[in-house]
């Protein structure tokens, strides 16, 4: 840790960042707040509505359903991606030419535009022309993600695992390579099993990076929009309509601004709350 000195002039260094981020964050946020407490009949005439929209959103079954779908999705992908990412990172080579090859190939999905990810999985999973869909049907599994809710759900989860597990792998790997060899030698002298090495040395050393991984994966999966929108359009029915997809439907589809504004703020608040918990945990680990 660096011994920081107190210097109020440091504010000057931060001003450009504050100006740019505030322009992008505060003005739009105020617009949303504005919508969330008013109603309109067009012609730019707005009426004060107080907390009406908030009560409506919080008591609407539609919001509850998207929220539960969102929780189920985020929970599922975290349960798959975190253990899988750790397992792959543990099995990766630590040195030699294969390290670069692995890292480059694994990072590739992270740099593909999100709608291309959706489109790619769409043509990969379609039952008539896609490799995955065609193969599954050929071996006798009835699979059509455009019609079956369960197939749609599984395909969306698989796409996310495909897209983001590498982030966990890279983070866990960065944690693993930072463990000095002496630790492993000491464990060997003590006759520790692989399992003991994992629980006593590797996992504790990865704690910090894994907190970052969970934080990033939580934030990004909770905000997911483009990939499932392109893959399934939120369907069949509403089965893959997550919070962001629902919000865009209400705001830009139905132009129901008051409702959308209130929902935005509730949504943002939930993400903030959970992220804050993880962030606090992370900072506590650091000091």
């Amino acid at each position: 840790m660096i011994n920081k000195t107190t210097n109020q002039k440091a504010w000057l260094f931060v001003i450009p960042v504050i100006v740019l981020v505030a322009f992008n964050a505060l003005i739009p946020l105020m617009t949303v707040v504005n919508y969330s407490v008013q109603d309109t009949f067009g012609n730019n005439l707005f009426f004060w509505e107080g907390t009406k929209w908030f009560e409506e959103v919080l008591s609407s079954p539609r919001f509850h359903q998207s929220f539960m779908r969102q929780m189920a999705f985020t929970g599922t992908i975290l349960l798959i991606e975190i253990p899988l990412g750790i397992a792959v990172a543990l099995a990766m080579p630590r040195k030699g030419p294969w390290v670069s090859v692995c890292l480059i190939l694994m990072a590739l999905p992270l740099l593909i535009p999100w709608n291309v990810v959706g489109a790619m999985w769409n043509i990969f999973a379609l039952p008539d022309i896609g490799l995955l869909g065609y193969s599954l049907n050929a071996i006798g599994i009835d699979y059509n993600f455009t019609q079956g809710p369960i197939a749609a759900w599984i395909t969306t989860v698989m796409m996310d695992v495909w897209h983001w597990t590498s982030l966990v792998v890279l983070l866990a790997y960065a944690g693993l390579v930072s463990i000095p060899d002496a630790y492993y030698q000491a464990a060997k002298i003590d006759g520790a099993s692989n399992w003991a090495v994992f629980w006593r040395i590797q996992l504790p050393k990865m704690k910090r990076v894994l907190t970052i991984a969970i934080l990033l994966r939580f934030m990004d999966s909770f905000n997911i929009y483009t990939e499932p929108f392109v893959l399934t359009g939120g369907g069949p029915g509403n089965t893959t309509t997550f919070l962001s997809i629902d919000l865009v439907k209400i705001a830009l589809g139905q132009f129901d601004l008051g409702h959308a504004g209130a929902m935005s703020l509730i949504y943002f608040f939930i993400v903030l709350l959970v992220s804050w918990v993880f962030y606090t945990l992370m900072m506590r680990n650091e000091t």
Partner: protein
Amino acid sequence: MIKYKSLLPIIYIIFLMLPIYWLINMSFKTTNEILGVFSLWPLEFTLENYRTIFTDPTWYNGYFNSIIYVAMNTVISVTVALPAAYAFSRYNFLGDKHLFFWLLTNRMAPAAVFALPFFQLYSSVGLFDTHIAVALAHCLFNIPLAVWILEGFMSGVPKELDETAFLDGYSFSRFFGKIFIPTIASGIGVTMFFTFMYSWVELLLAKTLTSVAAKPIAATMTRTASASGYELGLLAAAGALTIIPGALVIYFVRNHIAKGFALGRV
């Protein structure tokens, strides 16, 4: 034992490559072949899809538009984040922890929440459908990320470096430009990689803020798909081409990428 262990990364990488292979496979097929027969490789190999993209301005301009706003965003984000990250890594000042968390909250904001207000904001200041609008909008999540990563890398540089330089009579700006920036060059490279990455892959805001003049390639793809029915071969070729810039930048930062994902703190 070693062979057995390396199976998992191999299977994982094959799983990653299959959809990409399928996309590239389709990009070399004609739409008729895609819809007509199922084959693991192109039977009538064609470059027609790529030719269309490289000769039709509505297609190739999409690539230029994306690259222009991504480059602008990367330059803006890293330039303003450098002094701020230095301040966070070296000094205590009033409200510093709250400010840092406030910055991060913007990385947490769902883009869908901001789509409509962004459209109104950038239309009202007359920047709608310009590259700079998308570049500025992406600052919302890229500046906090850049500050976060750079602060991590800078905290790894001992403070004695600064103190020695000042004792040697360096002015702050000379120290920052001549000594400090070269010291954390790899950190800056990694930060640029991440700002590039998140700006390149984001579509919701980029699409909302543009219509014709600055339309990103990814948006061109969605509109063409809906307008001309199923031009699948063309769609696949355009998609395959969007992978290339990412693959290039990964290659350049491959040795630092793992550390970068750990936000420079391993």
